[in-house]
């Protein structure tokens, strides 16, 4: 039981720190909390396939200045002109590359079922929020195991698998590819590889099928420009 609890807690922490990397890079905070080293150590245990990329994130971070990190982060995930790697699930899962699509509403529904509502000013299927949700579910799962609450454990496992299967795992691969296509920043390139490998490993463990490409045929939005 202890190993299961520890595993779930480590996975919860891994998801949490992955989530942190998709917020604005506040390097002083990362350094104060030793986030990168902790992340690397965690992934060594939770995801051997993702671990090398986490190590690279650690090793390369200091090569990039704080302002450059902010500029590259903004270009990838914020804008203002266009999102090189839109961090929203609906962009990959619904027609026409919009936020607040039907898939977003489905995500909201899962949050509700878990007793949560989004408390930040962004779309509910932002990658950071979805990763945090996985952190939440794993945390509760660990708590349930530790407390011997099998019903709760089963519910959390079911919710987590459902969420991973129908939401996160369905778009994280093309999202990571967008990051790699959109930047030369080695931190974010490694983050993309790390996230991709991590989700792949988790999914495999949970028998979740990863989606390699955007789900719908986005023929209307993807015509070659003239």
């Amino acid at each position, binding site marked *: 039981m202890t190993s299961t609890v520890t595993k779930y807690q480590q996975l919860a*922490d891994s998801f949490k720190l992955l989530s942190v990397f998709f917020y604005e890079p506040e390097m002083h*905070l990362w350094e104060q909390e030793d*986030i990168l080293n902790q992340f690397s150590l965690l992934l060594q245990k939770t995801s051997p396939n993702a671990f090398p990329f986490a190590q690279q994130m650690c090793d390369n971070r200091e090569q990039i200045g704080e302002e450059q990190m902010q500029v590259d982060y*903004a270009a990838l995930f*914020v804008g*203002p002109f266009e999102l090189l790697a839109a961090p929203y699930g609906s962009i990959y899962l619904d027609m026409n590359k919009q936020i607040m699509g039907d898939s977003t509403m489905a995500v909201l529904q899962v949050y509700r*079922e878990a007793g949560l509502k989004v408390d930040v000013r962004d779309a509910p299927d932002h990658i*950071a929020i979805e990763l945090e949700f996985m952190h939440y579910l794993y945390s509760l799962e660990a708590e349930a195991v530790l407390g011997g609450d099998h019903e709760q454990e089963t519910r959390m496992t079911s919710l987590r698998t459902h969420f991973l299967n129908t939401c996160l795992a369905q778009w994280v691969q093309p999202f990571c590819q967008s990051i790699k296509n959109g930047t030369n920043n080695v931190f974010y390139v490694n983050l993309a590889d790390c996230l991709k490998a991590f989700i792949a490993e988790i999914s495999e463990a949970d028998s979740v099928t990863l989606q390699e490409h955007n789900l719908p045929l986005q023929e*209307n939005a993807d015509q070659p420009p003239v």
Partner: protein
Amino acid sequence: MKIKRRDFLKLGAAAGVAATIRKPTLNAFAKDDGGKIAAGELPGEWKPSTCQGCTTWCPVEIFVQDGRAVKVRGNRYSKQNEGNVCPRGHLSLQQVYDPDRIKVPMKRTNPKKGRGIDPKFVPISWDEALNTIADKMMELRNAGEPETFSLMRGRYTYMRDVIYDVMPKVFGSPNNISHSSTCAEAEKFGSYYTEGYWSYRDYDLDKTKYLLVWGCDPVSSNRMVPAAIKRLGDVIDRATVAVVDPKMNNTSAKAHEWLPVLPGTDGALALGIAHVMLTEGLWYKGFVGDFKDGKNRFESGKEVEEATFEEKESYGVIKWWNIAVKDMSPKKAAELSGIPVDQIIRIARGLGKAAPNVCVWMGPGCAMHVRGAYSAMAVHALAGLTGGTDNEGGSLQTAKIPVNKLNKELLKTFQDDLAKKHSKMKKIDQRGYLNLPAISKGKSGGGVVTNNVVHGILNKDPYAIKMIIGYMNNFAFSCNGTDLWEKALASVPFTVHLTTNASEFSQFADIVLPCVVNKYEKYGFVKTKANRYATCTLLQPVIKPVWDVITDETEFPFLISEKLKERGFPNLYDALTTMYADPETGKKAKNAKEFTEYTLKYYTAPLWDGKKDSHGDKINGWEEMKKRGMWNSDPYEYKKHWGGKYKTKTGRFEFYSETLKKALGGHADKHNVSIDKVLEESNYTARGELAFVPHYEPPHRNGDMKEYPFVFIDYKSRLNREGRSQNCPWYYEFKHVDPGDVSHQDSLKINPIDAKNIGIKDGDKVRISSIAGSGECVAHLWEGIRPGTVAKAYGQGHWAYGNTAAANYAKAEERGINNNTIIPWDIDRLSGSNARNGGHAVVKIEKV
């Protein structure tokens, strides 16, 4: 997004420590106890707001379910659109949920400015953004040069007063620059200098017997779109419909007559029609009057004695005939305009037969030329000749909307000496200079010359501009001569852009601020009209914005006023809180959101406070006003200005414009020159008395037609939400709703005869070039375009506006080509309008 809870960064016990209970730490979530209802099962609600996708400004309702806007329809109470919207109404859903919207305040970190140069924007807090802006503003005031600050306005509501008037005037700048002359000021010139009405007309389609549409497409644009869509079929059954446009549009595709006029010769065609109506005695005598003895003396080429004619509601018809019409026989008009003689005669006779129930629907296509002011007058003169002006079945003015106005006297009390003096300095658009009369409403320099701001900035004339705040504008895309705008904006030291999407204008900004999408997230109000009803309609936030955005026109000035107050300049804060106290309680606003609602209440109070008869819908209080979302006037009374009540110098409909004579004279006197000199400097050919009557001016072409053999026509797509819908995928999917256009293309329409001559096939990628610029688009061979002309819809060609709109932002590559890059910089100097019609752009087409 920023991490908002520091403890989120902390991990639990280190690995290897015995497992203990650890509660999850949350950053983006809060506990929700009401989460039992499944998505899509909430009942939803229709909430009222206003669509500003075009200038119809439709009262609408938006269906909101589970916090998400999903559908749009017209407001159920609207007598303007009767519950309908056009395609634009639906398209806006893809604007509010556009992932490329600006999400947080951002600042430039690369000081070098230019197209294709990465500004390297990074997120900043609202506090940092507002502090930086306030510091820059205070620098200008402390240096005693507040006039170097400019506020540039694009799409607005009538809450504009706060940001556009109060803020710059209290600060001390004269440079509040609107976009109005980009739209249709030359069109207003036509109606003002004939019937004294500086505004867009309403059209009584329900009663008309003849609809003459000139230079526009009422079912796709020009201010009463849903009403026109609903009625056009009935009008075609009941009346005659004729459309003057070099390019076949939606209306002309269904009309009885299509007159593909040679671009820029509208004045000749209008005068040719007038010539026939007068020589054949077809004018409406109940309005224009008649010869005293009833004998028609209008003979082609012959002058008429004024004393033989007695006018009723009009003034100067004989002078007009003698000066401009008598020699414009249908034969000559045909030679100039390319419209056959028999068609000119047929139209004139049709108008005469249907008079006075004639709508002459004058659009920008016949007005926004380099020499378009007189074309607009000539076309609108037909409304006078047929007696259709201000009459049943004709073109109408508007019923009054009794909202409160900006209290200008109170405003003045908050101006200090610096503000009083500097806010009266010359403006950066150079309006009122000798070569820029811009005689809006009869006043020299009375109107804005938006497109000339580039010359003011580049030449530092009358002085340098050091700071710009622009809101919902994109002059580097929407004004012809985009190359000049790029240079001018790159030269300004500090620019702030308040907008929904970072655009070509934002490329030159130092700070971009995320703003509301007006239809879904904003408080405001606008005034509009159609079907004889004037309408006041509210914009209301029907959804909670996904991102932390602000209302440009009210929240921003309030927030800045707080920052200026902190820096020792409380005047703006005092002005805003005093001028816009809650009209019900007298309370002053304590924050920006409260201020916004108080401001809206202040302006609209006469419509719902029950103190006076509003002469329209009876609305019981503010809550009911918000719930209905709009107010309708009583129907407009026909002939309200007949009987000498037109607001012209003579009180009559002027075929010989004493009003214009006075205005031109005033401008000439100001510069101590003759009126002829004014016209010469303004690029017009008229001299002497011709300057005071609607007449034909030879079209001005920018470029040698030997090198650039085609005349270029710009028109508006029925999917254009101004220039802002090009990041919506539906725009491309449904583009074929514009006649002659192909989905997923930026289609250049070429007549098959011309295409054959230059070896172009349908679907060929082509390069279109003018003296101003060039770009690539796709040739579409189409008989609906007059030979010798080519046409393309305005809208595509963004190099910055989001993933869908631009081909490659990093390389500044456009998707298609912006018409305003092809159309050289030019203006109509009499009205101040951007010149985007009349075919002043001539082009060559080459296969790529």
